[in-house]
């Protein structure tokens, strides 16, 4: 209908000035990229990042502080940037190009190779890198800095946008804190501890395997072990993160404790990506694709990691107390334990999904047997572990999470990676679905099926489909961002951690219509 493209309300003069300030900041980066040989790089870097931040802050102030508190989605589907218009597509292409260069052609950014010093954009970041870690910058340092600036500046914008909603504000402060501290500063400071005799691997402590799929590779394990008690402590923390800490926190709070409060990918999605959340597909077909894709990536990650660890355990049997076969058996044993446990105790909750779980389980076990049978040199079915690792790194680590995951924000929405690809999200989602107190509660019969919740769900969950039936929302993919609850005009949705009884509810007749209500309430 004609509503497709009414003239969006123009931006104010103050907002134009703010945009101009931000663009000057980017212009300095562009000058550096073109190797114009900026003098006093420290000063120019400060000015550039400062202008970008100030521009975003001024823009947000004028956009939100001039209005009363409340939902600020006016014109979202009229603006080119947020409705897959021309500006949206151009932004998508630009971001994608940036990621391709970052991952595969870092020399174009000015990364010094073969011991040469940096030039261009990377060189601009040298002073900051030296200040923090003592080393020259790399393309990853450039990326990390810009990433952190984005989360902080757009986090500020997000906090103003939701200034009536304390859940959103506190959550955003949390992702800003974890990005700045854990992802950015602490690893740089840790690098300062390194000397000729002591070296810790670069470690963002909040990154958990399988998201940091490289955590148990041989060079890192060696570095952990060689770094004495600190290193061993970090290694134990890495293992405990996935096997102990994660299940406990997910049981208590749902996967949101990680995905929308701590995780860096989530942090960027929730702040810089907030304008694109409505672009995620809510079709049933997208959900089907999601389930196959994300679990395939998880299987890939498990098998790849197992094969890699299996391989280096074999190289030097005296170095590691764990032997190849013990390791393989314990992986298989652990998976069997989980699988059997779920089938016995959680069969009912799984419903039809049990079949898919079984398929996944047997696929992994077959592959593990493959490693064992064809295990010479860590091959599974004639594929070397190293080949597996590098193709995982290329396809999942670079293309999926970076190029598609973030580059396609303006096209696929801000959580394409988290939804379709992240193996960590798959594990947490499995725990959330079956072993968690978290749910989104639907408020009796108050839903009017308006669809704001579904539209603004970044994970593409059709929230309304549950709410209009009076059902609670218990979905593995839900990252608990709480926006469905925020945009609901009727106060129908509430994220909460509560008893396991009645967590998954399903009502034929909605509350409000009398079908012996006390029966209904007591049976819940």
């Amino acid at each position, binding site marked *: *209908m*004609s*509503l*497709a493209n*009414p*003239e*969006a*309300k123009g931006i104010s003069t103050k907002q134009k000035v703010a945009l101009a300030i931000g663009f000057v900041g980017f212009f300095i980066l562009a000058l550096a990229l073109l190797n114009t040989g900026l003098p006093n790089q420290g000063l120019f870097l400060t000015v550039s990042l400062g202008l970008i931040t100030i521009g975003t802050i001024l823009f947000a102030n004028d956009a939100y502080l001039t209005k*009363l*508190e*409340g*939902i600020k*989605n*006016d*014109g*979202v*589907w*009229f*603006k080119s940037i947020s409705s897959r218009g021309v500006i949206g597509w151009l932004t998508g292409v630009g971001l994608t190009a940036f990621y391709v260069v970052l991952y595969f052609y870092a020399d174009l950014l000015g990364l010094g190779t073969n011991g040469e010093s940096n030039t261009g954009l990377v060189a601009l970041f040298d002073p900051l890198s030296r200040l923090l870690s003592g080393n020259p910058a790399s393309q990853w340092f450039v990326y990390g800095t810009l990433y952190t600036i984005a989360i902080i500046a757009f986090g500020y914008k997000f906090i103003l946008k939701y200034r*009536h*909603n*304390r*859940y959103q504000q*506190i959550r955003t402060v949390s992702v800003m804190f974890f990005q700045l501290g854990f992802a950015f500063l602490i690893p740089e400071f840790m690098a300062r501890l390194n000397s000729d005799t002591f070296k810790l691997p670069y470690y963002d402590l909040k990154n958990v395997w399988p998201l940091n799929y490289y955590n148990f590779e041989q060079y890192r394990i060696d570095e952990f072990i060689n770094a004495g008690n600190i290193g061993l402590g970090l290694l134990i923390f890495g293992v405990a993160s996935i096997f102990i800490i994660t299940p406990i926190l997910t049981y208590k709070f749902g996967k949101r404790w990680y995905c929308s409060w701590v995780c860096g990918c989530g942090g960027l999605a929730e702040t810089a990506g907030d304008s694109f959340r409505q672009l995620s597909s809510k*079709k*049933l077909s997208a959900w089907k694709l999601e389930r196959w894709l994300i679990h395939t990536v998880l299987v890939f990650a498990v098998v790849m990691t197992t094969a890699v660890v299996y391989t280096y355990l074999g190289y030097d049997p005296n170095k590691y107390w764990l032997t190849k076969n013990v390791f393989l058996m314990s992986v298989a044993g652990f998976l069997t334990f989980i699988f059997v446990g779920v089938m016995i105790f959680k069969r009912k909750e799984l419903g039809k999904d049990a079949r898919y779980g079984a398929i996944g389980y047997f696929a992994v076990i077959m592959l593990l047997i493959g490693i064992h049978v064809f295990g010479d040199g860590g091959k599974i079915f004639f594929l070397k572990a190293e080949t597996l690792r590098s193709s995982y790194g290329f396809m999942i680590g670079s293309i999926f999470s970076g190029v598609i995951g973030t580059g396609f924000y303006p096209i696929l929405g801000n959580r394409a990676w988290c939804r379709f690809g992240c193996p960590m999200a798959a594990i947490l989602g499995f725990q959330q679905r079956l072993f968690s107190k978290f749910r989104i*509660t639907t*408020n*009796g*019969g*108050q839903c*009017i*099926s*308006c*669809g*704001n919740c*579904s*539209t603004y769900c970044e994970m593409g969950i059709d929230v*309304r*489909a549950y709410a*209009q039936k009076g059902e609670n929302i218990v979905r593995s993919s839900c990252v608990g961002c*709480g926006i469905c609850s*925020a*945009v609901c*005009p*009727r*106060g129908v949705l*509430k*994220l*909460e951690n509560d008893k396991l009884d009645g967590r998954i509810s399903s009502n*034929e*007749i*909605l*509350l*409000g*219509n*009398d079908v012996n*209500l*006390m029966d209904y*309430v007591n049976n819940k």
Partner: protein
Amino acid sequence: MEHIVIIGNGISGVTAARHIRKMSDKRITIVSAETDFFFSRTALMYVYMGHMKFEHTQPYENWFWKKNNIELKSGFVDKVDHQSNELIFSTGETMSYDKLIIAVGSKPNKFGWPGQDLDGVMGMYHKQDLENLDKHAPNNKVCKRAVVVGGGLIGIELVEMLHSRGIPVTFLVREESFWNVVLPAGESGMINRHIKNHHIDLRLGMNLKEIISDEHGKAKAVVVQETGEVIDCDVVGLTPGVSPNIDFLKDSGIELGRGVKVNRFLETNIPNVYAIGDCAEQHEAIGLRRPIEAVWYTGRMMGETVAQTICENRVEYKPGHWFNSAKFMDIEYQTYGWVFGQPKEYEQQFHWIHEDDTKCITVSYHKETQEFLGINTFGIRMRHEVFDQWLTEKRDVDYVMQHLAEANFDPEFYKTHETEILSAYKNSQLQTA
């Protein structure tokens, strides 16, 4: 196979169809002249505001109907011939039925104002109204001012819609305070102030006298009854309520009042013809409810009920405790039980308002028995289930006030107000004692 035909694809008709399908394999056809697929009428405003696209207002994907074997028929029913169990469409086409459910909803009221049919004058009910509004008020250059007449729920939504596109709005409200036929004075006053805080030109106690036309038959100004003031405008929204959309049933033999007359089983005077939703009128009001209830929730409940009856489980329409919700610009409103704008003679009300002037509650209870009768809550979300239970258990007001925190449904980390409310309540009890 029995053929169930439902006229109207709104929430009532679609709920009936879904439940009949769940319980049976009868042939089901839904007829609509408005849209091909079911959409949420309450969400139309968000399409104009740019929060959603029209397809987002459709709760089911387009394949849903075929997959569930629910036939959709696009067409306008001109006549119902119950003697031959037949519908006659405006095209002359006919369709026969075994059972007919009338779920045709409402149409906007018009009170015979001069100029009410001019171009640029519209209600806000159908999808076509939305398209019309978008044509006449695409932005604040084409529409330099809009006047909205009628201080109810649709009126304030239309105000919010126009405001979202930066269009200056004058809001003519007949009552001395916004929606005070329903809301107690404290709440109504707070909403008045909230509307003005959004820079809406709110005119209380003002009626429309006439709408003035330009030379092309398009509205160019309105005249205010009380003051004679002429307000220039490009769009006039008329939202003085709705009434059942039943003109096509005149002379059909189906008993009509203001709506289609039904008994508690939602049956009309004609066997195998039922009416549900906005267009149904109870012979006698149920409890304190009105005989016609044009509310989303009651439409849905009637759909759930009539589906039982049609599937050989004849049950009465027995709505439980009254509840409703709305949103006034940025302030959410929920109500459970009965709180009257003009308190009944047996009714005592306790009112609390937050100092920021965007949150308040009114609790209604029985003067003598102290029984809790209902609550209105603004800016604080509360749990349907908890109040439903308390109303059923006939809790007294002290119990409710002391346990109010159990009913809180605000998002986590929100500031809570129960302590403050309780101490205000205790003070008010001391004063009345």
